[in-house]
Each structure stands twice: as structure tokens, then as C-alpha cells.
């Protein structure tokens, strides 16, 4: 009986620990909001609905467990996204495809924005991926690393 209790307790401890180890364990919405705020681009960024995120990035069903994405409302290329995914490799591929498509678009209409996409920050740790497309590339890198812990 005692043996069972101890093994169950240990299993529970393990479960609690695994969840936190995947990422910083923080809410993607809070992290995305923090990035937008600290980059000083809050005025032009809008959080988009989850169904729009799925449509824009064409994430397969179940690929993204939780996410928060802000997109610029002034036709610049700026994007901030924090994604908790079940498959970082697959999610990364979708994000890269989004960036490739966005770059083609910007080349046609807003070529001055292309450098942001060329220097997009895409950082991952565990099951979390952070995407930042903006002009302040150095700050973006630091913030991505900061929220990934």
C-alpha cells in the first residue's frame, strides 16, 4: 500500500515537472503582449483571433496548443507570435512558409518592409516558438530569448 502511494506520488511530481520544462510555462498571451509592449509597437499591433492564426499560418488541427499573435494594422510586415505546439518542427515549417509568402507580398507592394522579414526572429525552446518581425531586430532577439527563459 505504502509502495503504491509512494510510486503514485512520484509519478504525480514527474507530471507536474514535465509541463513546466517544455517552455517557460507562462501564458503565450502575456508573453506576446509583453513583447509588443516592450518593442513600443503597441499602437499599430492588433491581436488576431485563433481561427485567423490558423488560417494565416495554415496550422494543422492540433498542431498549436496555445498561441497569441499580433499583426500590424498599418500594412507593415510587423508580426509578434508566441506558439505552444505539439510538434515544433512542423510548426516551424509553417511559420517559415508564412514568412516566405509574406516576403513575396512585401516585395511587390512594400519593398521597404522586406528587410524585417529577412531578419525575422524565430526562436524556439521546448514546445514553444516565438516569432517576431519588426524593425528593431536586436531588441526582438533579446525579448524572444527573455520570454523563452
Amino acid at each position: 500500500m505504502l509502495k503504491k502511494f509512494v510510486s503514485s506520488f512520484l509519478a504525480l511530481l514527474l507530471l507536474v515537472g514535465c509541463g513546466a520544462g517544455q517552455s517557460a510555462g507562462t501564458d503565450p498571451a502575456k508573453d506576446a503582449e509583453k513583447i509588443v509592449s516592450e518593442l513600443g509597437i503597441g499602437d499599430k499591433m492588433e491581436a488576431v483571433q485563433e481561427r485567423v492564426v490558423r488560417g494565416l499560418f495554415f496550422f494543422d488541427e492540433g498542431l498549436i496548443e496555445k498561441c497569441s499573435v499580433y499583426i500590424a494594422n498599418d500594412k507593415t510586415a510587423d508580426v509578434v507570435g508566441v506558439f505552444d505546439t505539439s510538434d515544433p518542427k512542423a510548426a516551424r515549417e509553417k511559420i517559415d512558409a508564412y514568412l516566405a509568402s509574406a516576403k513575396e507580398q512585401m516585395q511587390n507592394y512594400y519593398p521597404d518592409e522586406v528587410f524585417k522579414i529577412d531578419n525575422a526572429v524565430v526562436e524556439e525552446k521546448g514546445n514553444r516558438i516565438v516569432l517576431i518581425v519588426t524593425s528593431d531586430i536586436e531588441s526582438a532577439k533579446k525579448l524572444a530569448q527573455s520570454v523563452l527563459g
Partner: protein
Amino acid sequence: MKRNILVGCAFLLALCGCKGDTSAKKSETDETVYEEVTYACRAVDYYNYAQPVPASDPIEDSYFDDVLFAGDSRMGAMYLWGTIPNAQVEYVTSLNLWLIDSMPLDNHSDGRTMYDELSETEKGNIYLLFGINEIRNSEEYFEGWANEQYQSLITMLREKNPNVNIYILSTYHPREISGLPEPQLSEHLTWVNSRLASLADRNYIYFLDLDNGMTDEEGLIREEYVGDGLHFGPTGTHALEDYIKTHVVRRSTYVKEVCE
């Protein structure tokens, strides 16, 4: 849905008003018995929504008092070069339909979005031209794009005004587009246009196939219409206007009352 409503209304009217003829017949006992015969009338829409809008006589200019043209930068040509002053034109350069409620309209400075405009319009005829900015995506992408996002837009327009006439314009075949060479471009255009046609059919709305009338012998948009291979210049815009004027569905041609 609009067709169902029309049919339903006509049927109800008919039930109320068409109770016309009564005929008499003699019974075996020579007593006159009146048997009521009821005629039910309904409006039947014979338009084939599975086909592109056919050519017709040019519509009168006043039609455009009640028209809204909405789309991406290709529709912007109507704003820049158009000669229909009474039509309303709204466009967003590089618009992705998924961002219809966040990207600002080009011809406004107050941050209004295409979705704001479409959700508030009272125009009875709405022309939609979307899809070129998403063209580099996969076929699966267009499933969600058409069946979820475009469909939600159509549903919103219909809920707001059940009698609105919606025309979906096909994504015409550009002469070239960066990052998507042939034959992939043709393949992607097939993906998007087949879904647009299907969307029109499912929702009983009209599909304008610009590839059937504005393209050359190779199936590309005519060179003289587009300066950069994609966007209409003045000549192309006037050709588009003529195409639209001669491809308007008159409901009176297709909706007939049938009484039984």
C-alpha cells in the same frame, strides 16, 4: 437561402391569394356539390448558379448607384481609373482575406477596414475580388480560406441583407506574379477559382469568370490591360467595367412564377 426565401414568400402569397377557381360537379343524387380547387403559385429561380454569369445587354448606368466594388489592389484600379462615378469602390492593397478586419482601406485615412465597410453597407449589389495575395499557398490552405473565411463573409452579408446580390469575381490569370512561376501559377489559380465557383454555387450567388472574356489566346489577362502583369491600367479598367456592365443577372429573366 435567398432563393428559398423567395420561393417561400411566393408560396405563402399564393396560398393566401390564389385560391381562385372553384368547379362544380353533379353528384349521383343530382345535388350540386362544390369542390374547391386550390392553385398554388411559387417563384422558381431558373438561374444556374453552378455556371459563370452569362453575357447580357449592358445594364443602365443607374444600376451602379446601388453597387459596391470591394477587393484587393486589383480592385483599386476601379478607384484609380474607373469611369463609373456613382459606384462605390473600396480596396486594400496586399489584402489577405484573413486580415479583412484589421488591414485599413487604402482610400480612407480613418483606419476603417474592408470588414467595417462591408458590414455597414446598404448597397444591394456587391462585387468581391479577393485571392491573389494568398495565391502562393497550398491547395489545403484554400480549403480553409474559401470554406471558412470567405464563407463567413458571405454569411455575414446575407444575414445583414437577405436580398443582397453578391458577385464573386474570379482570380483572373495574371501574366506573371513574383515567386510563382508556371505551371504552379496555373495550378494555384485552379485551386482558388474552383473553390470560388463552388462557393458561389453553394450560396446561390453569382460568379464572374474574368478569364472568359478578358484573356488572350494563351489564357492570360490581355497584355494591354495590365501594366505590370497583374494590375489593370486605364485600358484594362475600362475593359473590366464593360465586362461587368454586360454580365449582370436580371432576376426577372430567371425567376418565374409557376402556378399549379
